[in-house]
């Protein structure tokens, strides 16, 4: 029954798309081998998922014309799942967690409203010093900046 095979292929495609999100999820151990596989999928999933989606959708539409209503109950979700899988390749939810900082702005040391006991990460280059408050960095985690003309990334 081709409709059933197409549904299974479509579920397999969805599983492939979901695999990296499953491995790289918080509060769970990442083994080196699983992490390597997950990152490989993330780096290569767009063309693979697009080809699978096109192939499965085309086949499903070809079968659809001659199929009875039972087969169509398998074919419709097949198309939906592969389209969902291929769209998901463009969305990594972890890249949207914590608002990316964007263009940094600064406050003069004397005007900054921080407690004297608040910790900061300080970077000093060529006599220019900048402080990155840890409580702020603990949320955003990554700030792309320039100091004394040098592009730097501050991470916490």
């Amino acid at each position: 029954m081709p409709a059933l095979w197409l549904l299974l292929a479509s579920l397999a495609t969805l599983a492939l798309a979901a695999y990296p999100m499953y491995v790289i999820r918080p509060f769970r151990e990442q083994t080196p081998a699983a992490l390597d596989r997950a990152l490989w999928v993330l780096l290569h999933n767009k063309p693979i998922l697009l080809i699978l989606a096109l192939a499965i959708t085309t086949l499903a539409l070809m079968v659809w014309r001659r199929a009875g209503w039972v087969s169509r109950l398998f074919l419709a979700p097949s198309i939906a799942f592969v389209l969902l899988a291929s769209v998901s390749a463009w969305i990594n939810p972890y890249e949207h967690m914590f608002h990316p900082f964007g263009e940094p702005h600064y406050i003069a040391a004397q005007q900054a409203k921080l407690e004297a006991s608040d910790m900061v990460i300080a970077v000093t280059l060529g006599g220019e010093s900048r402080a990155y408050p840890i409580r702020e960095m603990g949320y955003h985690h990554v700030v792309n900046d320039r100091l004394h003309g040098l592009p730097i990334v501050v991470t916490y």
Partner: protein
Amino acid sequence: MNGRELHFHLAGINNQNFLMRDEETGTYWQQVTGAAIAGPLKGQHLTLLPQDELTFGLWKSAEPNGTVLAPLPLYASKYEKADWESEYSKLPTVIHAAKGTLADRETILGVVRNGAAQAYPFSSLTVQSPVLLDKLGGEPIMLVLGPDGKSVRVFSRNLGGNTLEFYGRSAAKVGDPWALFESASLTEWSFDGCALSGELKGQCLARIDALKDYWFDWEHYHPNTAIFRH
């Protein structure tokens, strides 16, 4: 990286240390090591710049003309609370330290010299005993707790081929007068590691990079690390 400016964003997590991705090449990077672990730049390392983790008060007195990263008002409510460190120390970990007597989330200062790695628990330094002398990878080093009672700096004690010995003025509490002395000359030195008087006046010890980290994470990336014991 090789003359090309990269821009990074958070892209995932690996055993509670985050992954970053750069917009330009799509490479995945491990935050704690700065190593590219997958993608076109795999195998490359970001250059670690000298940096300091210290209190705002101490930084401001040293750098009165410095600038501070402005908070984003929209997200200020999500920033960590003042007591976040003690809250985070209670969180579970997904991997566990294999050896030693330290708790997974014990805060340590990790130092590497000539291939030898050692973890110094923050609890080994107190305002009563702010200076810790040690030898790591054959190099005489020193950890110093600053006048704010929170910032720790690591220095080489090798100056011009001589090994210097230091001691700190014991204080009863944070805020008491802070001072660092070199034992042979009895001269006073600053928290920048520079001699303030005597024959060596103006000379400075070399700063050593150190990573403030949780024990489980440090041990994960430095499996052969030792733990400092008095």
